[in-house]
C-alpha cells in the first residue's frame, strides 16, 4: 500500500492550457476505467469551439522539450504522455512505464524542480519547463550520489523501479536534506518495488542525504 504523492497539477495554474485534451479521457476508452474518463473526454472535447486557436492535434504536432538542459524537438500527438515521448521518441528509457496510471513511480522525472509521474503529464504540457530525467543527473561515466547510494546499499534487484526511485529520492532530498526515517518512508511512499528492495532503499536514501551534505549540498 502506498502513500501517494499529492497529485501534481500538470501545469501551473497561471499557465495557459495548450491543449483541451485530457489524457484520462483518452485512456479511459475501452479500458473499463469508467464514466470519469469518458465523461471528461466528452466535456472537454466538446467544450473547445471549432477552430479555437489553442487546440492542438489530433495529429502529431511539433513541440520542443527542454530536457536535461537541452532543447529537443519532436513530433507527437497531443495525447502522448511525457513518459511515452521520452521513451518512444527520444530513446530516454531510464523512466519506465509500469502502471501507466500514476501509482508506482517508475516513471518519475523532475519537472521545474518538482518530482512528477511522467505518465500523468502530457508531453505538450511539458513545453517550456525544465525536465530532468535520470539520464541528466550525472556527468557521463559518473554516478550521481543517489545512484551511488542505491548501488552501495543494494537498493536494487531487477532494477526496473530503480531509476524512478533514484529520481524520487533526488527530488525528495532537494526538499528534505536532513530527513528522518519516517520522512523517508512517507516521502518515497509513492514508488513501488516488486523484488523487495526497500531495506536497501531506506539505507540508500539516508546515506545519499549524508553524501550530498558532504559535497556541500550539491544534488546534481
Amino acid at each position, binding site marked *: 500500500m502506498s502513500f501517494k504523492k499529492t497529485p501534481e497539477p500538470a501545469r501551473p495554474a497561471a499557465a495557459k492550457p495548450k491543449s483541451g485534451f485530457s489524457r484520462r479521457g483518452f485512456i479511459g476508452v475501452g*479500458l473499463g476505467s469508467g464514466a470519469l474518463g469518458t465523461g471528461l473526454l466528452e466535456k472537454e472535447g466538446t467544450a473547445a469551439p471549432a477552430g479555437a486557436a489553442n487546440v492542438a492535434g489530433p495529429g502529431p504536432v511539433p513541440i520542443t522539450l527542454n530536457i536535461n538542459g537541452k532543447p529537443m524537438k519532436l513530433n507527437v500527438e497531443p495525447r502522448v504522455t511525457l513518459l511515452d515521448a521520452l521513451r518512444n521518441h527520444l530513446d530516454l528509457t531510464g523512466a519506465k512505464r509500469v*502502471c501507466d496510471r500514476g501509482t508506482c513511480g517508475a516513471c518519475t522525472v523532475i519537472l521545474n524542480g518538482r518530482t512528477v509521474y511522467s505518465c500523468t503529464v502530457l508531453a505538450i504540457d511539458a513545453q517550456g519547463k525544465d525536465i530532468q530525467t535520470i539520464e541528466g543527473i550525472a556527468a557521463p561515466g559518473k554516478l550521481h550520489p543517489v545512484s551511488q547510494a542505491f548501488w552501495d546499499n543494494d537498493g536494487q534487484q531487477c532494477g*526496473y523501479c530503480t531509476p524512478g526511485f533514484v529520481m524520487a529520492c533526488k527530488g525528495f532530498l532537494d526538499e528534505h536534506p536532513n530527513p528522518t526515517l519516517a520522512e523517508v518512508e512517507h516521502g518515497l511512499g509513492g514508488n513501488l518495488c516488486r523484488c523487495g528492495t526497500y531495506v536497501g532503499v531506506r539505507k540508500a536514501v539516508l546515506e545519499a542525504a549524508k553524501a550530498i551534505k558532504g559535497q556541500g549540498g550539491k544534488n546534481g
Partner: protein
Amino acid sequence: MANIAEQWPPMETRKVMGQRIKRADGPAKSSGHAKYASDFNSKDLLFAVYNTCPYAHARVTKIDTSEAEQTKGVAAVHVVAQAGAEIQWEGAEIAAVAASSEEIARDAARKIKVEYEVLPHLVREDDLSKAGSHAVAGGEEVVGDPDKAFQDADGVHEGFYSIPVITHCCLETHGSVVQWQGDSIMAWPSTQDVTTWNNQLSPNVKVAAANIKVKMDYIGGGFGSKFGPDSWGEAAARLSQKAGGRPVKLFLERSTEQKIAGNRPSAFAKVKIGGKKDGTITVFQATSWATGGFTGGGSPPIPYISKQNGMPNYRLVHTPVHINAGSSRAWRAPNNQQASYITCSAIEDFAAKIDMDPVEVFRKALEYAPKVRVETYKLQLDKAAELANWKQRWHPRGKGAGTTVKHGLGIGVAQWGGGGHNSQCRTTINPDGSVLVEIGTQDLGTGTRTIIAQVAAESLGLPYSGVKLAIGSNDLPRDAASGGSTTVGGVSVSTRRATLAALGKLFDVAAPALGAEPDQLEAVDGHIRVKGNPNKSLTWVSACKKIGTGKISEMGEFNSRQRAPGMNDQGVAGVQIADVSVDTETGIVKINKYVAVQDCGLIINPRLAESQIYGAIIMGISTALFEQRVMDEQTGRMLNPDMEFYKLAGLGDIPEIVVHLDIREENDKRGVIGLGEPPAVPICAAVGNAVANAIGVRVPNMPMSPDHVLDALAGRRA
C-alpha cells in the same frame, strides 16, 4: 594438462568468494542506462497492441479487421482468435496490431470489430458449492487411521484457512521485441530462459531454433512467470514477418498483464488437526480446494513438510477448480506458500487449543521433517525465537497487554529443494592477461553476474575486477531457465570447472618458466607460483604472455543428472517469526519486526544472499497484508487489473527485518544452494499466526486486510 581439484577452497582461504561485493550491474541499473527489452528502440520499430476479450467466457462469432488494416500507420494485423474460437478468460488475446506509433496501434486495435456469443462463466472459487462441473474432487488419500487418532487425541481443532489468487505483477510487463527476416528471427524478450526461448518459439513459427537468436541483458521481474515466448512472442514474430521484417515491440498493457500473464493459485482448506497434551500432532485431515485459473492447478502439499516424512495419520481430499480466468504460472516456490500457510495456521491453532507455546508444538511437529533436516529446524526455531525475543514478547493467544492495539507473534516454516540446473561455461584467458567468462544465462536481479565473476576470480587467484563476463544470449554456451532456485547451483559449478580447466592449460604453458611440473603450480594473489613457494612465481600477466599468440579457451559443464557432492546441493529449511500489532478498531495490521533464519550452503556473496531474503520477505509481507485478485462473478471481470487497487507493499509497510544466514562450516561443505525461493515461503503463515496470537481469534482469509480482520473480530465469515 594439469589437474586441479574442483572442490571449493576452504572457507578460511577464500579471497573473492564470500566477499560482500556490490552487484556487477548496479551502476547500469541505478543510472538508468541498463537497457531492458522493453527499452528497445530503433528507427524502423513498430509498436504492437492487443485487442483483448472483455468476457470471461465467449465464442468469437465474427471478427473484422479491415478498418484497422486501413488505418494510416498500421503495418500489420495478426488475428489470434478466429471466428469460432472459444475464449475462456477475460483479457485473452484476440488480435494484435503493429503500427508506426503506439497511439496508432491502440486506436487500430480498438477498430477491430469482434462479435461474441457470450457463454456462462465461473470466475470465483471461494464457494465450492457453486463450482458445479468446474470442480471435480480428487480421490481420498488416507494414511494410518485418522478416525481412531482423533478419538485418541487429547486435543482436536477444526479450522478453515484460505489464501487468494495473487498476480506476479512484474514491473516490466511480459513481452518482447521480435524481428523476423527471411528464415531467421532476432528476438529481445523479457525472459527467465535465454537459452531455450528459441526452442519454444521454433515449432510455432516453423523457423529452425538455430536461426532464432535471443538476446537479453536485463529483465524487469519474472518470479516464475516469464519463461517461454508465450503467444505474444509468436504474435510479435508474425507481425514482423507481415510488416516486411521490421522489428515489432509487443509488451502487454498493465491491465492485460494482471489478467493473463501470471498468477499464483489460491488455496482453501477445512482442516481438522489433533494430538497429544505434550504437543505431538498425531493426525491431520483436510478438505481442500484451489484454482489455478482455467487449467486448474494448485495442489498444496499438506500437511506441509510432514506429509512424506512421518505424519502417522492423515486424510486428504483435494478439489481443483477450473475457473474462467487466466492460468496460473509458477510462483517463487510453487504451492509451498499455500501449504505452509494452511499447515502452520493449523499447528498454531492446535497449540492455542492445548494451551502450549507454539515454539514447542512446532518443535515437535518438525520431528516429522526429513531426518537430515530435523536438527537444523530445531536450531533455527531456537535462533529465530532468540532474535524475535520470543520469551519476553510472546503471550498466550489473545492475552497480550493493550486495549485496542494488540500485539502478537507468529511462526512460519519453510522447505525447498534447489540444486543446480544444466549449465555450460567457457572461460578464455588471453595473452594480455584478460579473462572472459561466457555463459548463456540470465541475471534476474538475483546477482548471477556478480557471483559468476566471483567464482571465476577466486578460481584464478585474481581480484574480482580481473574477470570480464558475457551472459544473456543464446549464442553463448548453453545454460537453462532460471527457476526453482537452481541458477546459482548450476552456473557456479560450470564456471568453476571451465575456469579451472583454463587455468590448467595456463599452468602447462607457465610451468617450464618456473622449472616445475604443471601439477605443482597454484594461482594465488595474481600470481602463478610453485605451491607454497612464493619465490618461484610469475605475475598473472607474465604467465599469460607464455600463451603466445593464441588464447586459452576451455569449457566447463554442470549436468543436473550427475551430482556434484560438495559443489552444490538441494534441500533447505527455514524458520521465520513475525511480530505484529493489530488495531482492533480499524483492523489494520502493522508488522513491527520480522525475523528469518535461513538454512544455506556455501554463500558466494553474503550481501546478495541477504538481499534475496529481504526481497522474499518483503514480497511475502505484501501478499500477507494486501494482495488479492478480485473477481466479479456478475461480469466475469477482474476488478483490480492495475496497481492502484491491486495493492503492493510500499516503503512504509516494511518493518525491521532481521536475517540470520546460517553460515557454518558444516553447511558450507554442502556447496552452493539457491536462495531465491526458500525464504519466500512462510510469510503468510507467520503473519497470520501473529495476528491470531494478537487478537485471540483466527483470521481465516488472507490477506490480513482490515476487512478480513474486522470480520474475524465480529465473528463473521466473509
